[in-house]
């Protein structure tokens, strides 16, 4: 008989095995992420930057609030009051003012930092809302779309409306809505939100359609598994990956769109620190006092680049190759810029 030269299980302490099993199980789950982060250094760079930026944003936003509550007066994390006029007019970057000052003596570095929580929150928040709203609608439109049923009718309506919204180039629509709603932070947030949700509808619907007809879903249905369970176990689980990728990439795009609206002059009011308004305010100073324009510009650039590096790498991790069947099922319009998604999805 064959010699058993492979190691055989001797008598093990079961408890020890289960703990080791849990640790190795965790390691198994994380391994693909660790592997890719190591394989693609850019993704790692993006991830680190994202973490740094997010933590900074949270601190800049929360520290004044917390200190106000606890100590009675706010302590700003920024070196100077962002709205504090001083006599250090139009100075270049120095040790005293890291990114220089503008015509009124405002410290650019402080202004840039103060704008960070707002812009980041807009990106994360608006994209998140769009994801939830659009994703929900897309789920409905994809899953309950049998013709001649109530679900089918609702799906049709959702799709028609989505099609119309998708016909607008995103920035144009956002600008038009922002202009009509008036200047202000909330109107411009609404404008971006209204522009963004349709892309998630298309995306989600596409994914749902693909999964709906996969053999294992059909098999589950035939075996009598309830629709709700199918929905949660199979459909949603498959949705999470692509949606997460697009969300990450979208954060950057939303920030840019929002700041563009402010740049055009119909967004955030002038008193609020925001990168787009800052670029617009200092636009003409590019040649004479370049740091004023380039600082907020660089801030946007770095933030968006961080999220893009991370999201782009994330996209590679989650191997979209298996989803290419969808190219012909769904018309190729999903997100602005995340165009690779449409043929991948």
């Amino acid at each position: 008989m064959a010699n058993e030269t492979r190691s055989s299980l001797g008598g093990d302490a079961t408890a020890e095995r289960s703990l080791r099993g849990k640790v190795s199980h965790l390691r198994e789950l994380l391994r693909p992420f660790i592997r890719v982060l190591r394989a693609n250094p850019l993704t790692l760079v993006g991830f680190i930057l994202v973490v740094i930026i997010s933590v900074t944003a949270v601190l800049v936003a929360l520290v004044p609030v917390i200190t106000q509550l606890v100590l009675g007066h706010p302590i700003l994390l920024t070196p100077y009051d962002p709205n504090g006029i001083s006599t250090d007019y139009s100075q270049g970057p120095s040790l005293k003012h890291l990114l220089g000052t503008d015509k009124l003596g405002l410290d650019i570095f402080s202004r840039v930092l103060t704008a960070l929580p707002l812009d980041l929150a807009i990106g994360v928040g608006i994209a998140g809302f769009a994801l939830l709203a659009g994703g929900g609608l897309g789920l409905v439109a994809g899953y309950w779309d049998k013709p001649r049923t109530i679900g089918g009718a609702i799906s049709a309506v959702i799709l028609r409306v989505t099609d119309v919204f998708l016909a607008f180039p995103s920035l144009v629509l956002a600008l038009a809505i922002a202009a009509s709603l008036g200047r202000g932070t909330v109107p411009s947030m609404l404008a971006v939100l209204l522009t963004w949700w349709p892309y998630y509808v298309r995306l989600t619907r596409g994914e749902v359609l693909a999964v709906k007809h996969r053999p294992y879903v059909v098999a589950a249905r035939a075996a009598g598994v309830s629709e709700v369970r199918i929905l949660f176990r199979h459909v949603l689980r498959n949705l999470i990956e692509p949606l997460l990728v697009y969300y990450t990439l979208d954060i950057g795009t939303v920030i840019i769109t929002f700041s563009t609206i402010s740049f055009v002059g119909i967004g955030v009011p002038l008193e609020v620190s925001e990168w787009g308004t800052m670029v617009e305010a200092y636009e003409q100073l590019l040649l004479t006092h370049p740091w004023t324009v380039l600082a907020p510009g660089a801030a946007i650039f770095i933030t968006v680049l961080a999220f893009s590096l991370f999201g782009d790498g994330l996209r590679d991790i989650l191997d979209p190759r298996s989803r290419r069947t969808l190219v012909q099922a769904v018309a190729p319009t999903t997100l602005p810029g995340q165009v690779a998604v449409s043929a991948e999805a």
Partner: protein
Amino acid sequence: MGRNRSDLIVFVGKRLLQLIPVVLGVIVITFFFTHVATQNPCAVWAGAHATADQVQACIVRFGLDRPLTDQFWRYLTTLLSGDWGANPRGGVPVLLSISSAFPATLELVLASLFIMTVLGIPLGVIAANGAGRWADHLVRVFYLSGWATPTYLGAVVLAIAVGPAIGLPTKGDFASTPPFARLTHMSVLDALLALDFPAAGDALLHLILPASALALLNLGIATRMTRTSMLDVLPLDFVKTARMKGLSDFVVLYKHALRNALISTVTILGITAGVLLSGTVVIETIFQWPGIGAYAYDAIKGYNFPGTIAVVIVFAIAVVISNLLSDVLYGILDPRVEWR
């Protein structure tokens, strides 16, 4: 086979018919945002120093006191009859402005697409060929940098700093108003038609910066898509067959692999059009290019309702037609696809 000419015509016809409800929807939504959501446009139109009477007169004149359905119906009928209204401030007819602005934008967008194709696609091939190695990383940083730069920032830097530094013009489409008649309103084409070759050269120079700005900032779309498609195609057997025929690496990559990868890449043409058109709003404004993007910018900021609606309609039609074009191209490039 569902692939002959008549199938194609039916397909295109069906899609054009689908255009109509979309355009209708676009009109409704734009109408909603311009007429319903906006508070008191007459305050802006009548001017900053208008008296209450003048504002009221303005309201009556533009029918803004009528019921909404009334306004909409009036607007719809005038639209369809060909009268696209005029800018409430100044009275310039919208149709006139758009018909001269749109071709200029078309020229800009086509130039950008050209740059994106010539630069972006080979970069995607290079990235895919060296996947995971330094060439790939370099390409990725390059196109993500373009992507991460807001259009306004890139345009401002190019127009104010880079352009003057390297001696390229940054304002308008010609150095001075050209002497010849503008037949098509596309600068280079008009100059060529008038056989004015120095002017054509001048027009070309003026085209370089804005088109490059638009292309470089959005290069990622083409590059990323090409890279992904190539990565899908390169492991396939027919690429091996091509190699085993003794063909050089270049021929295998471009004639065999890319040819198939382009099939998928072309599907993004529709979205690319939308993104580029969005970009023209800022680019044309900063580079003072007389196109429909700049017109849209002015219309939106200046509460030019008829102008805004008209521009948005034109944009929407352009996007839908680009989508249609990309589907048609897809069918042409892939012999296996049928027109359904």
